[in-house]
Structures are given as structure tokens and as C-alpha cells.
């Protein structure tokens, strides 16, 4: 696999950095270019360093078993740690990837002094918690105070959801301005590299870290909010964790996986009195984006977020849920999309025990019904029936098209450059 020297283009108010990628053993759709695009005012954050292309490119190289040749500059620190990073990718998620060799044309760090501190900003519990913890008023170390939030299009929001994305960008920009940080909307197609090859839920780490690398011309520190705490990480495999994300740091960019020290319910508790979180929280898996209510309130993640909010007596303050929980009995909705796979169940019970013990019977019933539903509908339902049900919209995903993460006009203007 060859990762060519990245190039910059400024056009139509946007600056794009792209690199041509060539794969020897590819099967199926593979993007011709990997690119990142930001509004022109943030163009100086983009660099022609190859780090942002090598990190996600590594996943493709390892998937195809294709050694990588990088035809641009790579940070020596990143290059050094990629050996252990490759080991850990395979250790955490065996059977997906091969070990490969990487040939670096040039090892040199970015030659600039960067001062900004970034964090991804998706509007979810984890990112709001990370930002909350690194606001001036909560973070005593000035060089760890967040100055910029990065909202990515092309990760959990697809390119064809542009209208929704722009809607959220406006909301987030206003909120960011209120807390004295800037919002950088970043568009990218890097998920195309692994799409339909590797499960994004297992391999989000390199993808999110690469967003930080793309903006390394401005950032000296980049926070990746943790999805899982140390307790969950002990028993589950993920490529996004405090150990692995740190290995993707460069000589000029400190990557910090933040928040694994806190359980999700503790994060909800910490942000539950913060007005920005109350007016902004977006956790929904359904992506319906109704005006003022962008959380469907019925998907697994909406309920997993609403239950602690309700338990803490803050449901009224959180305005982004379409159907907020109004009574203890409403907790039974948890059963509808209940997933026993991740370790969030115990912490929800602990929180209820501490703050609102009268919820425990309802939670117990919801969990029991949820388990039953999960095994009958998700696990034991024959594949053929699942396939048949797809025609009615069940068991489908938003990103099923092979090029779901591509934007043809951006590829076109890169080609025409």
C-alpha cells in the first residue's frame, strides 16, 4: 500500500488536505483519496504531514496484509510507537488484522509551535463530560484547558446527512461560543478505508485520533472522550482506550484518551447541572433530528442516558428528548432495545439504589424483559427471517452502501486539481 505525499487545496471557502492511497490487494470499494476538509478559517490547522493518513491507513494495510510505504513526513514518535500499536490492535481484536512492515520515507515532526487544545465534540455524554472537565473553571492546568471542539462529519453522521449536520453545527457553534471555545466542523471520508471490512464499533480509536492528527497544525493536545471506563475495558476489547490512543501521540501532539476513570452514570451526574449539556445533549442512534428534539427517546442509547438523568431528578431540565421519562413505570421502555452486551447495567442499578431506590423494581422488570427480548429477537432469530424483515426496515443500517462515507464532488475537485 502506498500513502502518497499529502497536498492542500483551498476552494469555495474550504481547505482540504488529501493523500492518494494505492492498495495492492484490495477487494471491493476502496477510496482513491483520503481527505479532510475544514472551513478556510481553520485551514492553518491542516498540515501536509502524513500522520493523519498513516493512522487510518494502517488499519487498511493490516486488513489487507499489505506493507505500507509512506511518501511523506511522519512523526518519529508516532513511527516508533506504531510497532506496539500494531501488536495491540491484533491482541485486542485477534483474527481481523495482520502484522505489516511500514517503510517511512521521512521521519520528522511538524515544524510549528501549536497552542490549541482540541477535543472531539459530538454532543454525547462522553464528549460533553470531557469538555466540561477541561473548561477554564474546572481545569486548573491552563495548557489542558480546551480551546476547540471538533465535530466530525463522516463518522457517526454520514455525508448524506448534511442537512442534519449543518443543523447541529449551528447549535454547537452557539453553545461553544457561550463557553469560550471554538467549534471546528471537520469533514472526512477516512471511514471508507475500513467500511464493510472492519466493524467501526471495534476500531474507532485510529479513526478519531486521525482527526486530531489532521488538525495537528494547530493542536498540541487532543482529547478523545472515552466511551468505556476502566471496569468495562477490563472485560471488553476495544481499540479506543487510554493505552492505545496515547501511542498515537506525536512529537507535537499529545493524544489523551479522557474519562475512563468515570463510569457513564458518573459522567451524566457531573454534567447534569450544566445548562449547555441540558440544551444540547445528543445521544440518539436513530438520527431523526426533529427540531428541538433530536433524541428519539426510545433507542437503547437514549434510554441508557435518560434513566440516570431521570434518577437524578433532572429530566425536566434536559430538553432534547422527544419523549422524556415521566414516571417510574416509563423505565420499562428500557426493555425495548435493551442490550446486555456492555457493562452499563450494573452502574445504572447502583445509581438508582443510591438516588432513587423506588426505581429498582421497574429496572429489574425492564432488564428481565429486555434480556428475554434480546435473546429471542436478536440472538435466536434465524438469519433468513432477519433478511426477510429487512424489507420492512428492520435489521438495516444507515451506512450500507459501499461508498456511504464518500462525497463525490470533493473527490472530483481533488482529481481536477
Amino acid at each position, binding site marked *: 500500500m502506498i500513502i502518497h505525499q499529502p497536498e492542500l487545496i483551498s476552494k469555495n471557502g474550504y481547505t482540504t488536505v488529501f493523500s492518494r492511497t494505492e492498495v495492492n490487494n484490495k477487494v471491493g470499494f476502496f477510496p482513491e483519496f483520503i481527505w479532510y476538509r475544514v472551513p478556510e478559517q481553520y485551514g492553518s490547522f491542516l498540515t501536509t504531514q502524513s500522520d493523519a493518513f498513516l493512522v487510518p491507513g494502517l488499519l487498511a494495510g493490516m486488513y489487507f496484509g499489505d506493507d505500507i510505504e509512506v511518501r511523506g513526513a511522519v512523526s*518519529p*514518535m508516532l513511527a516508533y510507537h506504531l510497532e506496539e500499536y500494531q501488536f*495491540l490492535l491484533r*491482541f485486542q481484536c485477534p483474527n481481523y488484522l495482520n502484522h505489516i512492515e511500514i517503510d517511512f520515507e521521512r521521519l520528522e515532526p511538524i515544524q510549528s509551535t501549536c497552542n490549541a487544545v482540541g477535543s472531539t465534540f459530538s454532543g454525547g455524554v462522553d464528549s460533553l463530560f470531557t469538555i466540561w472537565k477541561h473548561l477554564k473553571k474546572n481545569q486548573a*492546568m491552563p495548557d*489542558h484547558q480546551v480551546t476547540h471542539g471538533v465535530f466530525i462529519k463522516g463518522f457517526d453522521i454520514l455525508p448524506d446527512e448534511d442537512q442534519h449536520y449543518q443543523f447541529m453545527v449551528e447549535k454547537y457553534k452557539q453553545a461553544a461560543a457561550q463557553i469560550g471555545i471554538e467549534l471546528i466542523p471537520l469533514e472526512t471520508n477516512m471511514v471508507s478505508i475500513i467500511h464493510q471490512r472492519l466493524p467501526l464499533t471495534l476500531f474507532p480509536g485510529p479513526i478519531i485520533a486521525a482527526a486530531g492528527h489532521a488538525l495537528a497544525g494547530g493542536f498540541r493536545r487532543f482529547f478523545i472522550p472515552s466511551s468505556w471506563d476502566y471496569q468495562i475495558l477490563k472485560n471488553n476489547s476495544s481499540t479506543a482506550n487510554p*493505552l492505545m490512543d*496515547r501511542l498515537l501521540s506525536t512529537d507535537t501532539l499529545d493524544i489523551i484518551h479522557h474519562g475512563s476513570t468515570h463510569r457513564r452514570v458518573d459522567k451524566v451526574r457531573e454534567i447534569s447541572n450544566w445548562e449547555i449539556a441540558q440544551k444540547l445533549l445528543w445521544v440518539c442512534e436513530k438520527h431523526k433530528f426533529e427540531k428541538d428534539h433530536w433524541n428519539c427517546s426510545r433507542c437503547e442509547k437514549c434510554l441508557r442516558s435518560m434513566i440516570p438523568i431521570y434518577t437524578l431528578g433532572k429530566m425536566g431540565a434536559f430538553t432534547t428528548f422527544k419523549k422524556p421519562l415521566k414516571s417510574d413505570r416509563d423505565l420499562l421502555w428500557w426493555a425495548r432495545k435493551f442490550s446486555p452486551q456492555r457493562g452499563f447495567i450494573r452502574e445504572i442499578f447502583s445509581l438508582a439504589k443510591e438516588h432513587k431506590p423506588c426505581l429498582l423494581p421497574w429496572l429489574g422488570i425492564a432488564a428481565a424483559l429486555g434480556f428475554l427480548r434480546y435473546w429471542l429477537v436478536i440472538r435466536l432469530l434465524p438469519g433468513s427471517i432477519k433478511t426477510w424483515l429487512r424489507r420492512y426496515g428492520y435489521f438495516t443500517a444507515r451506512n450500507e452502501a459501499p461508498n456511504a462515507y464518500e462525497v463525490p464532488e470533493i473527490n472530483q475537485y481533488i482529481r481536477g486539481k
Partner: protein
Amino acid sequence: MIIHQPEILKRNDDIIVHARIELRQPQANFPKHLWYKIPELFSQHISLQSDAFVIPGLLAGMYYQEDIDVRGAVSPRLAYQLEEYQFLLNFRMPNMVTPVDIKYTQLQALQAKPEAVGTAFSGGVDSFFTLWENLPQNQPIPEYQITHALFIHGYDILNKNQSKYQAYYSRFQDALKQIDVELVSMETNLFSFIAPRMKLNLFYGPVLIGSAHVLGNLFQKFFVSSSNDYWQLKTWTSSSDPTSDPLLSTETMEIIHYGAATRRVEKIEAISNWKPAQENLRVCIPVDLEGMSNCSRCEKCVRTMIPIYALGKMEKFTTFDKPLRSDRESLWWARKFDPSKYFVKESSGGFIQETFDFIRKHKPTMIPWLRMAILLGTIRHWSLKLIPKPVKKWLQRFGYFIDPLIQDHAFNDPEIDQFIESSSTSEQ
């Protein structure tokens, strides 16, 4: 707990960097000062930041549940990360240490541009492996090629064993000179903070890294060799691993926990043709043993000799008193066999799986002897466990069941303490 501003004293040809430590609730046998003794030759590399004192001091604070007041400059990056570090120590060893608040008088990064790449060096398999992998012939990235090795006195050689340390120092110095690595000698009483209170094998990480921070003007990178690999870390717990050690990095020094991706038998194989390792390997456990060779009978000696013997390299490794000479001699494994090191929940975790896989590949004729050794060793281990306490106590008068680490001044040098008390300005 107060960690006072570090100070420097000169004593003969050495420099002593020390900080006074005050506990709010005084404790018996708790050292009044933390100190590091370094040859004067390295005086320009010494950092007077409090980083080297807050890291080990934190353990004492967490153990006694005393909030910490640091009266010297601490790296902001380190200070930021100590919160997560404390969480991890408590997460892993919840019954031993509790998070505390730390108050910093001054948060300031070291104003220096250190250039050297250091590694903690004990002469064991892990540290030889780290050194080998990061020598110019094996490590193409110049920024990670090791230039200095730090050999600490007061860690696995007790402070009172001066002559043993000196002998090893001379030997290692000669060996490392041949590969252009400078050996730095350092003595410290850091372990006297920990030894009678916490388990050394769980809390050695902060000690090694604290020692590196004293030479903050020297090291831009510092390697800590892993004792446990990633398979073992799934089950075993320690203060030193690839997740926690880098949290002790500062703006000017990157701490790298190295080698957890490689199993111990693979490390032995990697260094088995390397002359400096063959002639200087030091793995022997008994810390108070005088002499310069490996006893060849303790658990670690035998665990190391078995793969060396299987590779057919036994005669090349000249530091073993009684090297294995036949398959049958691997029965010595039984003598100090500790099942807890070998059998763990994860099937691939302990040393047993890797040892058997390795032997099966390189010398399958040893397998029956190893199986027998394990059987006998397990019986022996449990028989010892069942000996009643009074009998064990009685046997102590004959030298059995004595922990050398809890003897008086095992990890301290009273002369240096006295010197600090008489010379330090903070004592005035």
C-alpha cells in the same frame, strides 16, 4: 503530608538530592528524607523539580491517606496525569492505596532540553532485552536509541550491600561501554518508603520512574522494562505497566514501558546470542545474597535457565553457578516452584504456557521432566503453605522464612541520613 523543596548537597565525590517529607501523623520507621545519591560527574544533569519526590511520595500519601502539599515546582503535565494515575493505583490495588488531594505550590515545566535516552537497568532479562532492542543496530529511529542506563542501588540490591553493588556496577559499566552506553550509578532510599508497608513487587514502578526524574536534565526519554507481558497483565496487577507508567511523563521526559508485547521466553531468545547478556545476565532473586553470580536454584534462576538450556546456549551464559547440564536437571524447578506465577485464570497468562510452548518447539525431550517438576513443585509449595505459623517462626532462627527486606536499614543508609540532617538548610 508535606514534600518540601528539594535541595542539593555535596558529599565527597557525590551529589545528594533530597527533600524533607513530613507526615501529619508521624509513623514509626518512616524516613525523614527522600534522597538520591549521584556521582558528581552528573551534577549538571540534576533537576531540582519536585517531580522525583512527588511520584514516590504519592504512594506514601495514598497509603496513609494524607493529602499532599508539594512545596517545589512540579511539571503541569505530570500534575494533570497524577489524577488518573492515582485512580489506576486504587483501581488495581483498592485495599492498599486511596486517592488523595495534591496541592501544588508551583506548576512549572523543567526549563531544559535534555537529549539522552535512558533505561532502568538491573542486568536482568527484561532490561537486557530493552537495551538490545533499542541499540542503533536494532532501532532505526535515532531519537529512541539508548545512550544511558541507570543502575539503582537500593532497589534489588539492598543499600547495606555496598560491595555487591560496586562489583556489579564495575562489571556492567565495562560491558555497556563496549556498546557505547554509559552506565549511571544512583543510590536512593526510596524503597524505605514502601518496603515495610506495601508489596515491593506491586509498587516498584514509581520508584524506578522517580529515580529517572532526578536526572531530568539528562533524559528526554526513559525506558522502564516490563516484567509482565500483555497476556499476564490481563490477570496480574501492578503499579508498573504500559498504561500507568507513561502517565508519569513530563513535558521534557517521555516515560516508555517497554517489552510487554514480548513474552519472557522470547526475550531470552532475542538476547541469547548477545555477548554482553551472556556474560552479565543477573536474574537471581535473593536480594541480600553476596557474590556476583546467579545461585541457579531460586525460582527465577531456574525459570531463566530452562529456555537458555532449551536453546542450547547454556554454556555461553557464564553467570550461573550451577548451569543446567541435562534435561533431568530441570527438576530443580520444583525446588522453589510457585504455582501462583504459573497458573492464572487466563490460559495464556502465566509463565507455564509460554515455557511449555517454547520447550515443545526447541527441546521437546524436556517436557516429561518439566511436568514432573511442576507436580513436585506444587506439592512442595502446598506443604510449605500448610506448615503452622509457630513452626515457621521457630525455623526463622535457622534462617528460613526470613524476609530480608524488612530488616533495619535494608533500604536506607543511616550515614547519608545523618549527613543530610547535619548539612541541610531545611533542618536549620
